[in-house]
């Protein structure tokens, strides 16, 4: 229980992934065993996938595992590498801040639309992009801050000679 509270993102991802498996699997079971195709499973699975994608993307940012090309940057001296790394963190933060803002605008724009099979408002699946970007903004601004502090703490004062 404590673990669930301490790791809300991780818990949410595991639950969604499990739910996704159950939904798609029960679609097969319903079709073959019960001979009664489910009407809502496809839509539900698609909405779960949107949430899973955005939350997992945020999780991948937290674990610093997104694909990036580092060949060029790795050839540079340490001090420049750090500056580039900070610049990248700031870029990521600002970019997702913008996605967050536009995402809110987009979700407000679809209010009133209802999903045909599940009969739920479309804000529910589409909000995933808001939550995902907010998490990425939070994590990458934290990473920026840490890196900035690390830069001040770990490096000797730059010698001007």
């Amino acid at each position, binding site marked *: 229980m404590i673990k669930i509270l301490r790791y809300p993102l991780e818990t949410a991802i595991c639950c969604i*992934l499990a739910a996704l*498996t159950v939904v798609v*699997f029960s679609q097969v079971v319903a079709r073959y065993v019960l001979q009664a195709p489910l009407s809502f499973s*496809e839509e539900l699975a698609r909405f779960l996938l949107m949430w899973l*994608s955005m939350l*997992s*993307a945020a999780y991948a940012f937290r674990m610093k595992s997104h*694909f990036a090309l580092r060949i060029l940057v790795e050839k540079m001296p340490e001090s420049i590498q750090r500056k580039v790394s900070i610049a*990248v963190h700031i*870029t990521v933060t600002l970019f997702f801040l913008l996605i967050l803002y536009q995402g809110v605008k987009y979700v407000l724009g679809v209010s009133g639309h209802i999903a045909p099979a599940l009969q739920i408002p479309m804000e529910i699946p589409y909000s995933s992009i808001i939550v995902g970007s907010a998490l990425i903004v939070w994590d990458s601004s934290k990473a920026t801050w840490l890196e900035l502090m690390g830069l001040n703490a770990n490096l000797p004062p730059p010698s001007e000679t």
Partner: protein
Amino acid sequence: MAGIDGAQCQPATPFGNIVATAVVIILFVALLTSVPIAVALGLASLAGLWLIAPGSLVLLPQKILSGIDAFTLLAIPLFILAGTIMGRGGIARRIVNLALIFVGRVKGGLGFVVILSTMFFSGVCGSASADTAAIGSTTMPEMLRRKYPKPFATALLAASGATASIIPPSIDLIIIGVVSGISIGGLFAAGLLPGVFNAIALMALCYFYGRRLDLPVAESTSWKEKFQVVADGGLALLMPVIILGGILGGVFTPTEASAIAVVYGLIVSLFIYRELSITELPDVFLQAARLTGMVMLILGMASAFSFVLAFERIPHELAALIVNYADRWVVFVIIVNIVFFLLGMIMDALPALIILMPILVPAGVALGMDPIHIGIFVAANVTISLFTPPVGVCLFVACGLSKLPIEAVFRPLLPFLAVLLLTLLTISYVPEITLFVPRLLGY
């Protein structure tokens, strides 16, 4: 500004287009400064949308979401999860053991084991890096224990893990199918023979090396032991049969098969082999989620990017350009192969697939090619980029397992690269290899 004037006059070539030029420059600057690929694509689309109309930025979240909203795409997280479960739950190890009793006694037999196991494991797992990691973590220590040269062992694992990924299920094939509107079942059926063909070519190379380096053979096993391994590994081997048989036989869709693979993998690992405990599950799920997040975010951003290009009619002009130069399919194939090979050298192939395939498939079809054949030879090309330096993921995984720096593997990789380029050319120019199975099954 001069740029605004430029936007107003009609562009003569794709690169006379100011929006396209700006977008491509931003993309490459961002990529080269180690901005994550997904964000680099997002930044480029952002710039493009802003140049088209500053008020259209709300299209960005819309396009990202619509890029990941398809029932067929569900197969991606689920096949990744299935692969992770089976790698951790002892299924990968049993496939290796099975291969060992069949081909372990040949000179260089462990190499055969690596090739066969990555191939079979790829039949249940959608991701090349997961395949390489799962099979490599068992076979690499074995190869090193039997005094296989480290760089050779690493190159072998990277090459076979990468090329096995064309065996269905495959994330690349799912994405190719979704973005260019080709039947995924058809692509899966078509990927089978080229995958086996690659494996045979690799085994021939391995046999040659086995002789030349005088590689040791595995210890002989008694018939009793052999029987035990087969009995123990039967369930693991049944898995690819169920998944592929089910999809190819039309019993269930690729998406449904992915859920079945997860459930089967869970039952076998948790209750039959008992190598995975329930407490480890969150860890397994999160490992799968990480790759899912990376792939899906690239997919979303690349569809926003594709939208910007489409708005500027770039795909249209590019297709016209291609058809202009490649007036016969023979030329088309070589151009497409060169483009993907070069792109694959410098970056992950996923964005290139998402952006280029919707353009290339209709262009190829116009030249009389079968869309399935186009999808497969491009996928085969992309598998090569998975083990070529500097950015091949399978190479990273293999080097991680053998603890070698990537530079040490460059030379031993060359023969593998040469052999696989030859098979790529064969697959590209002999459509029958690809189309035999799907035609048999009526796709």
